[in-house]
């Protein structure tokens, strides 16, 4: 599961809990009021008075409404944000068999492929839905054409996987001394 899905799941669980608690509390308050008892937990008489004495153009009301709009936008962002994929779909070969490659392991694999290139001291990689980015650290006096070699190694690794969508590759080189 992706990090986005985890965040969405935690927020959803908290919201569901809050909704459950608040609605049950409101039922309890209704029951208490019906039985002629005072409020149990919620000082709703004070809340009602506050709402009666404040108008729509009061700053505090508008500030609360802005907060509501911000919260709404955050929820919509969570609902629509796709984030990085947990796995990359590979080309289908056998009917009824879906093959994927976990994104994190592909990143490790690409970094390893780049690091094996001569003149490269280390590398890291990140993969999104469309692009594989590799950042490779060269030794101080690197040979010309090293970028092409890294690019070729990364491309070769991706081709051996056979991703359904051809990923663009981006290679950035930094010298070891510059870090």
């Amino acid at each position: 599961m992706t990090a986005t899905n985890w965040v969405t799941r935690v927020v959803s669980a908290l919201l569901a809990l809050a909704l459950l608690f608040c609605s049950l509390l409101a039922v309890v308050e209704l029951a208490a009021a019906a039985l002629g008892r005072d409020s149990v937990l919620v000082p709703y008489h004070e809340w009602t008075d506050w709402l009666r004495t404040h108008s729509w153009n009061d700053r505090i009301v508008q500030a609360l409404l802005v907060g509501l709009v911000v919260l709404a936008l955050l929820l919509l962002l969570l609902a629509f944000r796709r984030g990085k994929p947990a796995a990359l779909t590979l080309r289908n070969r056998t009917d009824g068999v879906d093959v994927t490659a976990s994104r994190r392991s592909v990143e490790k694999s690409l970094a390893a492929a780049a690091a094996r290139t001569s003149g490269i001291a280390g590398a890291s990689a990140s993969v999104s839905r469309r692009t594989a980015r590799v950042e490779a650290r060269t030794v101080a006096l690197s040979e010309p054409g090293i970028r092409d070699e890294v690019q070729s190694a990364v491309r070769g690794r991706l081709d051996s996987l056979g991703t359904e969508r051809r990923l663009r590759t981006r290679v950035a080189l930094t010298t070891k001394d510059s870090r």
Partner: protein
Amino acid sequence: MSSRANVINRVVLTVLGLLLLTVGGLGLALGLGAFGESRADNPVLPEQVRTFPDGRPWFWWAVAGGLVLIAVLALLWLLAQLRTDRTTQLDLTTDARDGYTTLHANALTSAVEDEALGVSGVSSASANVREHRGNHVFLRVELTDSADIDGVRTRLENEVVAHLREGVGDPRFPVTIELRPGASKTPQRSLT
């Protein structure tokens, strides 16, 4: 974790988000005078709204009913977070009149894992049966850094999946394979 829960979460969050956006947006528009300056000066809770339930005993019953409905939906939403797609049994019954046939998922997944581990380049394998739009087997294999990905995939599809399908008696039984290339280093061999 259930992938259905992800869909439910997105739908509920969208509904809640749109609802809050509508309420917040309309309230702000009202306060900024979009519906007339006099309305902007109105209290948030006008007298006629506050006194509406007076003499209407059904009103609070309706509110209580609505609240119970929200509580039930919230509980279902909460439970959806805990549900998983995994299943422990596979129903292989072809004709209920002849009796029921079930297969323990563990028996199937252990066999699949063992066979996958025998494929050169596979360092570990784990499988489970999931129930999402019908049953399917999910097989996760970790490959050594030097594994021939294409070769591993061919053997998994042609041998492991073929035997699995033979085992369940369904030549089209759906399988999902997740490859994890480079997840572990190639075992070092040393000469002594």
